């Protein structure tokens, strides 16, 4: 039902602050004449983190459009053989839409590094040390390598945005990046950028549940404080 409303454009997602930070990063890298990295993580389409990879790819299309328009050099190293063709197609589409397709060299800018975690991590660290990017955007599913990336890019002086919904890695991005998309903010950013009614619709559906949770929580607590625990008992039943 929410997705129908999404299709009719009745739903608008509020501006996610993280997206302003992305524009700032791309702008900064154009001024400094240094490249921008956009890493969507090691996820694949068939694992339970598929939605995080999809949100990361929506952000990749937004970032590649900005890079094409402002003339920043984008690098998006890949770790999964199924995600690579999709990412290459997204980036090429953005550059084509901006009429800059000839500036894009998919082979060099979207290299496949490795499917294994630590080989992937050292591949990225090697690339970053060599290319010395001014900005780094990491939105997607990340594991223990998140700490290594954030530390390496900070040492190079890159401005960083981190965004993941994997609960155990959020603290690293929050501690080590200049801006962090916490958990679901990443899905909202992906939906906002992609404009896909289905994604927007499901964000709206989730919001209705949360609003219900807020209302019941507040009402329940106030009533319970006054001794009436009807709401709590109903929910436990």
């Amino acid at each position: 039902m929410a997705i129908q409303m999404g299709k009719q454009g009745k739903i608008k997602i509020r501006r996610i602050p993280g997206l302003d930070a992305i524009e700032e990063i791309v702008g900064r890298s154009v001024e400094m004449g240094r490249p921008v990295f956009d890493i969507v993580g090691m996820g694949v389409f068939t694992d339970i983190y598929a939605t995080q990879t999809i949100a990361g790819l929506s952000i990749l299309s937004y970032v590649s459009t900005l890079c094409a328009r402002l003339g920043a050099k984008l690098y998006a190293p890949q770790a999964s053989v199924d995600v690579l063709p999709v990412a290459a197609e997204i980036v090429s589409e953005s550059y084509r839409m901006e009429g800059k397709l000839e500036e894009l060299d998919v082979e060099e800018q979207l290299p496949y590094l490795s499917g294994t975690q630590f080989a992937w991590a050292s591949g990225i660290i090697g690339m970053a040390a060599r290319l010395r990017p001014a900005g780094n955007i990491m939105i997607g599913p990340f594991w223990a390598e998140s700490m290594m990336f954030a530390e390496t890019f900070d040492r190079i002086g890159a401005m960083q945005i981190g965004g993941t919904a994997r609960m155990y890695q959020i603290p690293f991005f929050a501690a080590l990046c200049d801006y962090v998309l916490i958990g679901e903010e990443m899905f909202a950013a992906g939906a906002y950028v992609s404009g896909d009614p289905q994604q927007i619709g499901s964000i709206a559906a989730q919001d209705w549940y949360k609003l219900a949770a807020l209302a019941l929580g507040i009402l329940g607590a106030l009533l319970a404080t006054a001794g009436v625990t009807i709401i709590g008992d109903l929910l436990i039943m």
Partner: protein
Amino acid sequence: MVSMDPQIWIAAFLTLAATSYAFRDNKAFKFAENTFIGVAAGHQIVMGVKNIRDYGWSHLMQGEMIYIVVFLLGVMLYARYHKEYYWLYRYPIAFLVGNGVGISIRAGIHSDFTLQIAETASPLIASTAMGSINNIITFVGVITALSHFIFTYEGMHKDTLGWGPKIGRWMILLALGASFGNTVMTRFGMYQGRVIFLLREWLQIIA
């Protein structure tokens, strides 16, 4: 007196090789990582075959012929790599996803939603003053953190109501700090086990 057991020596070498990545990526680490990937995949096959025998083949032996269908679906998983008939692997995957999703969301609504709200809907004033303060802070934490994740309701982010998501982001960041602190302990708590192995089993210089 250093251990003479070859098993301990192999394990000690691999422990040091796997640690070397922290200093710099090197050949010994590449050797350790590739060993790890191969061994893990081999173990998956051994446990997979054992499970197929214990929970599939045993039923067939007891005459439950319906299990032939399961074995067929199982083999179809490997059609994924076939040029033309790769779509066959979608039947078993569809079964697994339907089972996996159904089994988790049915209880998720209860454990992650209704019970969590029921806990929030509990009295704020407790017997002790400190208890009341803690209840209020917890209550504010839940409500503001939740409001931070409301994306489509514009009003939530305007003027007075706007304080909700802002405070929510602060509370979340405070909680993330606690998680960061605990992760430091996790990593050290795990690596110390390897040092004790090196000192006790390998070099045998501690009890």
